[in-house]
């Protein structure tokens, strides 16, 4: 696993740097409160504070933008397309910037919150607990907003882009090929069919999940592999062909292969299902076997 740029080149992780930074900041602020700080510390403190205020709006904009782009596409999208910039790292920089702003409470946050200077209890009696409290609250707010806003944004963006999608289209956008496969089974089986599905192991997490597929196949019954009868007492009438399963020959009346695209029609083959048949060797193959009546 890649340990990160900082860890690899200066042997100190980002978290450690952040912790040091927070402690350093709190200590500097406390020494200013207690008026024991040297002129140099005061100068550096003011310099960082001013730079922070200047850069924060830009940083906020960039962080929101990148997180929104990432959410609108997929994790790692920004990293692979924008000069290897990881939005989470920028999020940390954002938190650091906010932390400096919190330390600078008397100048910025107090005005924003409309707190009158005479009431600034925190500044009159500064202590570690109150500073910690302030940091935690800000951290909670920022964490919440920064995680929730991109998620809302991505969903709303999809809704605005696709306002008129049908139920089927929405389900397909969430479940992908699995949904198409379930609909394929419904189209090719009568409502009283009992369908045997693969075990619920990899790669059949969805198609092998009896609880899940019954929702899509209702009122059809489902049965776990190698069971004689379903919970309702029905014997299997059909068997799924999914991702290399079944890997044993099956006495079939007919085999229906699911077409790859909506424009193609399903291919029907009569006779025994043979897993060694080159056609059935395809790992992505989906289809349905109508079992031979006993």
């Amino acid at each position, binding site marked *: 696993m890649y340990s990160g740029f900082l860890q690899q080149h200066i042997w100190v992780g980002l978290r450690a740097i952040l912790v040091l930074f927070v402690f350093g900041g709190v200590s500097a602020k406390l020494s200013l409160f207690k008026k024991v700080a040297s002129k140099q510390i005061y100068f550096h403190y003011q310099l960082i504070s001013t730079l922070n205020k200047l850069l924060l709006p830009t940083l906020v904009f960039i962080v929101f933008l990148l997180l929104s782009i990432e959410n609108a596409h997929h994790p790692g999208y920004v990293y692979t397309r924008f000069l290897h910039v990881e939005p989470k790292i920028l999020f940390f920089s954002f938190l650091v910037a906010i932390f400096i702003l919190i330390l600078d409470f008397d100048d910025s946050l107090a005005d924003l919150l409309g707190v009158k200077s005479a009431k600034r209890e*925190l500044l009159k009696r500064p202590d570690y*607990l109150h500073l*910690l409290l302030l940091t935690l609250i800000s951290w*909670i707010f920022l964490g919440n*907003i920064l995680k*929730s806003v991109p998620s*809302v944004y991505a969903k709303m963006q999809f809704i605005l882009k696709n306002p008129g999608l049908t139920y089927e289209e929405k389900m397909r956008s969430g479940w992908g090929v699995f949904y198409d496969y379930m609909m394929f089974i419904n189209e090719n089986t009568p409502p009283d069919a009992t369908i045997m599905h693969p075990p619920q192991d990899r790669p059949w997490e969805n198609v092998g999940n009896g609880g899940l597929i019954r929702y899509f196949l209702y*009122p059809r019954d489902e049965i776990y592999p190698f069971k004689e009868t379903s919970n309702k007492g029905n014997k299997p009438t059909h068997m799924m062909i999914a991702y290399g399963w079944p890997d044993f020959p099956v006495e079939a009346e007919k085999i229906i292969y699911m077409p790859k695209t909506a424009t193609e029609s399903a291919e029907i083959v009569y006779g025994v299902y043979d897993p060694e048949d080159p056609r059935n060797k395809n790992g992505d193959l989906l289809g349905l076997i109508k079992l031979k009546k006993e």
Partner: protein
Amino acid sequence: MSVVLGMLGIVFFGFLLTLILVPKISLLSRIALGYLLGTGLITLFMFLAYLAGLRFTFENTAKILIFSLIILVFPALFLKNRLEIKKNLREVTLFFRETSSFEKIIFGIILFFLLSSFIITVYYPVSHWDALALYDWRAKTFVDTGGMEEGITRGFFFGYPLMTSLAHTFIYLFGGKNPQFTYSLIFIGFAILFYGALREFTSRKISLLVTLALITIPGIFDHSTIAYTNLPYSVYYVMGTIYLYIWMVKQKPGYLALSVFLVGLSSWIRSSEPFWLANLGVLIFYCLWKRKFLVPIFYSLIFFSIQQPWKIFEARMFGSQYSTIESIQTSVSVLATKLSIVRIIEVLIFVLKNAIVPDILFWGLFLVVVLIQIKEIFKEKNLWFLALILANLLLLFVGSYIFSFTYPEWKGVPGSMVRMVMFFLPLLLYYFGISDVGKKFLGE
């Protein structure tokens, strides 16, 4: 259209009930409570009526709703003065006139999140795994067959009570296509009630800020847009706990009744969580101290009349080990016979890792607030809510300890633990919101 009428009927039923239960509460809170109580109780009546022989059909459900409304309309008519419409309208006007720009911005952000949740749930169909495999599946079979036989014989039916499934059934029977919006309505109701409960103790500014912090918690917001039971359970349980606290501290009549109804209904959403015991324990302790001996009896009577029908039904289907008494007996025997220091440490680490660490900022906030007001911890206002949080925490640990003996693969369900403890976050935020620390923090 009929689904809107059906929903209005549910809200109106709950609204009438609040008129009977609570003399003084804001109109908006009454509506929010109306929705929560209405949904919970009407679905419970649907279940009881089914056990009595009425199948799940549109006609039967409409009859249950109308009959329930008729029962409440007449007593509520005598209490219509409790509505205080003029006072409520004046308060709404004042809210918009007196709020600062900062408060208006916060209010706007809250509104944005609530509306977004509603739009998302109206647009997206029920499509998450558990919702399809269990909650909506049961509703689908109820509507299709009018009964539970199909669902029960097909398996994976029990384990969770029917509240959300019957709410879906209600929507489908009244002509609705997508019941997911009911979850965002619960979320909106939660925001209103949480804000109202904060206002009992603190300023508008703090109440708005803490409510904003609540509704933007990613886990809570996400769950408001999906048909899982975790958020509804948390909402009912949290508001029940908060109302219990308000009753303890302010002795406001009606809040105890609200509390027991909401906590009772939380067990109609998820019955395996034992947290109601924590509230009952603190209530018994409080009542013994204050010499209010009848209150726990009254509380237990209402609670068990809501909680027991499903438990009895489940026990009849599977055997007495599913009954409340048997569960308590098993738990006590585990505690008495299987004391192991190694297991205690293991469970402690598991709970810390999965229930505390993922929300470490909230727990940190709670700890800091406790430390800051440590000298005033025995003030009634600070003490009882702290006691409720700690009792729930203790129960989480003890429950996990017992679970570790009754379920050999207990370490394999960390995800469930994370979702189960979702209700702690609103409680921790409320504790911060009502504390004097919050007021000092914002210079009030």
